[in-house]
């Protein structure tokens, strides 16, 4: 790996050696003719890969992320425009095409340089060969709450600042005045002393001749004019009048429609298929046996879907046909028993065994969570057109560049013959980072000259997912005379990502955190906040149990263990104060608190639950969140609200179960979602602590399940150690 320098980040195109292509924030147009071809129209100067300046002085930010509801186009553009002193009224954005030059370089840089860990599921993809790190740093992924904290902080801001400096330098030369006498505002350069003002575009040609600055000066928060403002999102008007184009809305001439069906037991292959009846059904064009799935192509989707339900398919036996939900958990517990004291080590501090043996007493508890599906509102779909040696793919993708590489590999095409058109994602939550569905669309479409739109039924979407893993976690804590922990021994199953998800924020001198693993055919996929979703529940429930053992209030107990971290304390205090923690609540209600640090953002939540009905109802959630600095406060709040509802849905109802090796649930009637009548009031307080900027999309999710479980305990005295929590009373009878 080449030596990484600050200069390299901004000015270099390629790190030498032919091994890695780690990108740059800024390039001169003439060094990247391919980019210039792709992104510029006549008269435009390509100042750098993340920003375009047109002759009419409009500025276009090029955003290498996917829009799946997190407002990324707006927040990225906002960060660039602020540093550039651009006129917000004339700034627009384009979504970067799936091309190496737009790969998520800052993310790659952080990964390669190790100053911040890239979410591990990205790493998994690398290891799994989805991304050819040997050929290029093919990251263009939206996930791991990375957009603002990596691309925004490391790319968009620097691009904007560098572009501004180059324009100022050009203006200084043109006017023959010192650069320090120039002011920039609203996409204009001003020289106060001489009264001159010119739009940025006047200097674009000259600016394009300079090498970019190696270290453009970034603004400090007191200089922000756009960052930190709740600017309205670009994508919202089109999402209120039906014009926003999602993958499922793509329409092409001569297009036909495909329905698909995968094996009930994941991993099975077709042995035989009887299509006698289906192939004569109205509108059916072709029935396809693709080995790992079957498909029906028809004139309309409904015809295809009707026909596929009439196929008689025999699937191979994989050995998993007898697996039940009980077996899954028995396997997990058996792996834990095998691991015993010697699970794979995650954290080892002090001497847990000695401390536990000499503790005043020992307290133990075991928790579990079930599999979860993603259930994005837009069922998975992709439209492919394979003809004349070229492949075009339209879909909502969290990692379009990797999908392009996968398609090139699967069709034996040159990457340059594969074009991926990324459109709005009707929810992603991790599911749309997997390339399985676009590849299926290509597999189908290559049998035809015309484009084919493949749509999954909701049933397929639920049963052919990559799941949040079922997992078990067991704790054993040594407590001193006051009930404070002197040791923390945690054995859990199914470690994925991020690696620190099982770590605790609390100061406990002796810690052993270790894990066992069971390979299931129920395949793993990153699910909003990935491992934090289960560890948040495990850790924050157990710490609450310890508080109860100590006869202490859960909030005060946490405070005692967080004295080393003013940041954690501030967030915890803010949530508790917002909820008026400690107040009397009516009979049948309870308050619960939890704190989780994930993706660089610290979040505390207090839940007020009402247990007087047939199921617990969350009345109100008070949330305090410290992302370091919220770039677009209302957008950040919306993300936190969303994370809470997503996590609450899972905590209350989420339960994918396995019988005869297959997923039992199929649609919203048996995999229920939180609805308007069950939605709590949510209050979010942002703490801009100035800490390193964290993510927004995921950190709202992990604390809600334990805060709810702790509130149920406060209301009922019943400790909830498994999910879904809506069923908590069933375990009592």
């Amino acid at each position: 790996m080449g030596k990484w320098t600050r200069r390299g980040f901004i000015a270099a195109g390629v790190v030498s050696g032919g091994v890695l292509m780690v990108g740059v924030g800024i390039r001169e147009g003439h060094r990247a003719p391919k980019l210039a071809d792709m992104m510029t129209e006549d008269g435009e100067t390509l100042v750098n890969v993340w920003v375009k300046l047109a002759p009419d002085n409009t500025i276009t930010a090029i955003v290498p992320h996917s829009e799946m509801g997190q407002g990324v186009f707006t927040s990225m553009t906002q960060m660039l425009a602020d540093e550039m002193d651009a006129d917000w009224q004339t700034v627009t954005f384009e979504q970067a095409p799936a091309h190496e030059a737009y790969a998520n370089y800052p993310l790659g840089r952080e990964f390669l340089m190790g100053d911040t860990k890239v979410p591990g599921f990205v790493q998994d993809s690398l290891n799994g060969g989805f991304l050819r790190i040997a050929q290029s740093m093919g990251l263009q992924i939206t996930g791991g709450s990375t957009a603002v904290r990596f691309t925004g902080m490391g790319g968009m801001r620097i691009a904007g600042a560098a572009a501004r400096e180059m324009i100022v330098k050009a203006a200084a030369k043109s006017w023959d005045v010192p650069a320090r006498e120039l002011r920039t505002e609203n996409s204009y350069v001003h020289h106060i002393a001489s009264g001159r003002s010119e739009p940025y575009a006047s200097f674009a040609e000259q600016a394009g001749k300079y090498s970019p600055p190696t270290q453009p000066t970034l603004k400090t928060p007191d200089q922000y004019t756009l960052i930190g403002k709740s600017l309205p999102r670009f994508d919202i008007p089109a999402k209120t009048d039906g014009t926003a184009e999602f993958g499922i809305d793509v329409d092409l001439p001569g297009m036909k429609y495909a329905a698909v069906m995968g094996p009930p037991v994941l991993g099975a292959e077709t042995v035989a298929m009887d299509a006698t009846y289906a192939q004569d059904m109205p509108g059916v064009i072709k029935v396809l046996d693709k080995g790992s799935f079957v498909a029906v192509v028809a004139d309309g989707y409904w015809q295809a879907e009707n026909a596929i339900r009439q196929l008689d398919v025999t699937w191979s036996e994989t050995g998993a046909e007898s697996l039940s939900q009980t077996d899954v958990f028995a396997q997990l517990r058996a792996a834990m028993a095998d691991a015993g004291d010697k699970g794979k080590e995650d954290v080892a501090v002090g001497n847990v065994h000695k401390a536990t043996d000499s503790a005043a007493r020992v307290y133990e508890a075991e928790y579990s969570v079930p599999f979860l599906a993603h259930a994005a509102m837009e069922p998975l779909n992709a439209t492919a057109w394979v003809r004349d040696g070229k492949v075009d793919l339209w879909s909502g993708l969290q990692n379009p560049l990797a999908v392009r590489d996968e398609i090139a590999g699967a069709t034996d095409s040159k990457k340059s013959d594969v074009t991926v058109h990324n459109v709005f994602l009707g929810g992603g939550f991790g599911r749309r980072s997997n390339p399985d569905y676009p590849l299926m669309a290509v597999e189908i479409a290559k049998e035809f000259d015309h484009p084919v739109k493949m749509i999954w039924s909701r049933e397929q979407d639920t049963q052919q997912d990559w799941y949040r893993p079922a997992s078990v976690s067991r704790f054993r804590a040594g407590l001193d005379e006051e009930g404070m922990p002197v040791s923390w021994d945690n054995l859990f199953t199914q470690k994925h990502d991020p690696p620190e998800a099982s770590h605790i924020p609390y100061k406990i001198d002796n810690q052993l955190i270790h894990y066992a693993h069971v390979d299931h055919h129920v395949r793993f996929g990153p699910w909003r906040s990935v491992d934090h979703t289960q560890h948040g529940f495990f850790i924050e429930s157990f710490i609450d149990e310890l508080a109860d053992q100590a006869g202490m209030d859960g909030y005060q107990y946490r405070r005692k263990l967080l004295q080393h971290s003013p940041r954690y304390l501030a967030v915890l205090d803010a949530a508790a104060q917002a909820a008026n923690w400690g107040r009397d609540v009516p009979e049948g209600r309870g308050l619960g608190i939890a704190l989780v640090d994930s993706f660089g953002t610290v979040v505390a939540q207090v839940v007020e639950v009402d247990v007087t009905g047939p199921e617990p109802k969350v009345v109100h959630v008070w949330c305090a969140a410290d992302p370091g600095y919220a770039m677009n406060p209302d957008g950040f709040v919306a993300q936190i609200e969303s994370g809470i509802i997503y996590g609450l849905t899972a905590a209350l109802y989420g339960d994918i179960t396995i019988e005869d090796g297959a997923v039992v649930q199929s649609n919203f009637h048996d995999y229920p979602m939180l609805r308007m009548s069950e939605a709590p009031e949510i209050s979010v307080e942002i703490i801009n602590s100035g800490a390193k900027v964290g993510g927004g999309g995921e950190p709202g999710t992990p604390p809600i399940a334990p805060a709810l479980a702790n509130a149920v305990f406060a209301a009922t005295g019943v400790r909830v150690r498994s999910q879904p929590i809506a069923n908590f009373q069933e375990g009592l009878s």
Partner: protein
Amino acid sequence: MAETRFTVNGDEQIVDMDPTTPLLWVLREQLKLTGTKFGCGIAQCGACTIHLDGTPVRSCSTPLAAADGAELTTIEGVASGDGTHHAVQAAWIEHQVPQCGYCQSGQIMSAVALLRDNPSPTDADIDAAMSGNICRCGAYGRIRAAIKTAARA
């Protein structure tokens, strides 16, 4: 096949398709009105909500035959003829309701019907009218606030 005649957003349509075809697919694939979304196919999520003679229905589970002679309104027909946003759409923008946005056509169709029949709905009225529409991004709080804003408009 049989001809089915109806209007969509005021435009007359004659469709020659299997009358059992769900209206959702007629709108999306035949008439290219893709603002109405497919979510579940079993009337559980509300993403496909349209108005049939003014009543909100789940178009994924309403056969084409049911539209014979009817007036349909989809998300594309909610704004007034000159393109001015409906009060519900304006409130949706003011409250920055949509995130991924996929469910929002259905949400807006349910909200428009609610406010037409009940210009000042209570929280319970909103719960009753809107609980058939799932939002996986969890925009429920903003939807509720936007409905109240639209009610005041």
